[in-house]
């Protein structure tokens, strides 16, 4: 009895352990040696660090890929625009296609120094997430992407924020021809530069 009470008291003090025990015993902690050890990449217990020569090499590779990516990005935007027009005409599967392209731009563009393109694509994905089963209005997003992708380097800072803010406005989806679009803002912004 005392033993039982003692165990109960112990469980109250250590409820986490008690729950874990009920689930099948305490967790096993497994130490895993480093890959450097197991593959013999270091000797005498030396610790590894980043190699500056590799950092330079990666930077060079990314610079080359950035140039190629601009062409890919423009091609993606063109495909998206085409799919969007087809979707408006009632073509099937265009929703998934547009989302896939936007998702791809969202994931990759920033790595190639095209942060604003990536953020516009993120907003396109968000619009699709908010309207399941339908194709939301993204004319302005596509137009803005088209302008941004043709600029090198892409706009940053306050100007980029302004573009994104315009795209985020609720009225953007039901914009009339008299209202300024984000793309219009961009054209004017570049004109004043």
């Amino acid at each position: 009895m005392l033993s039982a009470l003692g165990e109960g008291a112990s469980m109250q003090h250590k409820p986490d352990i008690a729950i874990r025990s009920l689930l099948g015993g305490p967790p096993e902690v497994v130490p895993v040696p480093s890959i450097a050890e197991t593959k013999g990449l270091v000797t005498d217990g030396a610790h590894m660090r980043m190699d500056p020569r590799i950092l330079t090499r990666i930077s060079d590779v990314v610079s080359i890929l950035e140039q190629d990516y601009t062409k890919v990005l423009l091609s993606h935007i063109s495909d998206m625009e085409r799919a969007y027009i087809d979707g408006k005409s009632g073509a099937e599967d265009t929703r998934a296609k547009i989302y896939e392209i936007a998702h791809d731009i969202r994931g990759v563009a920033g790595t190639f120094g095209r942060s604003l393109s990536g953020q516009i694509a993120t907003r396109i994905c968000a619009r699709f997430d908010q309207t399941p089963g339908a194709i939301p209005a993204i004319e302005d997003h596509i137009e803005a992407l088209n302008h941004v992708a043709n600029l090198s380097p892409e706009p940053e800072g306050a100007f980029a924020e302004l573009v994104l803010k315009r795209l985020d406005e609720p009225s953007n989806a039901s914009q009339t021809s008299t209202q300024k679009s984000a793309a219009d803002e961009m054209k004017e912004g570049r004109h004043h530069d």
Partner: protein
Amino acid sequence: MTETSLAPLRILIVEDSEQMRTLLEALLEAMSITDILIAEDGEKGLALYMETAPDIVITDGAMAPMDGYELTNRIRTAPDNPNPYVPIIMLSGHLEKKHVEKARASGVTEYLAKPVSWQTLYERLVSIVSNPSFFIRTPTYLGPDRRRETDELFQGPVEQNIAPQPKSTAEILPLDAIRRPSLIRTK
């Protein structure tokens, strides 16, 4: 300190985006890694993993027919897997809490937000390769130990149930250098 040569590594990339696959392959090659395996979805990735036993897996999150979360879970729990502790880096454009928690529950080692900076990827690879880690095994979870501080509830050899520490690991690094991965990194 020794500058890292990652050249002997075998890395599996599981990614459905062609652009991302090209980018990752080029980045790894720039790191002198040439043994790179590529799969377009989780299902093909799992088959390739079981066949080739890579040292590190880099996977996307959202894919079909099998996503990166299930891939991670299957790698961690497959009974015939020779290395359920393989480091798994998940790259994902989904930063919502539910996705991060899902990744955590499936047992990923690192969750990097897309767009991934190449410096971050290199830094994480070097860290994963050079630091030993701890895994937690329970009836419902196998994955990295994410506790940042010592948990009083786990004190003592019986409750902690720690296997003997590999001598070389203890000698190489002080305790505070042992990798305790945070789940999400954005830069």
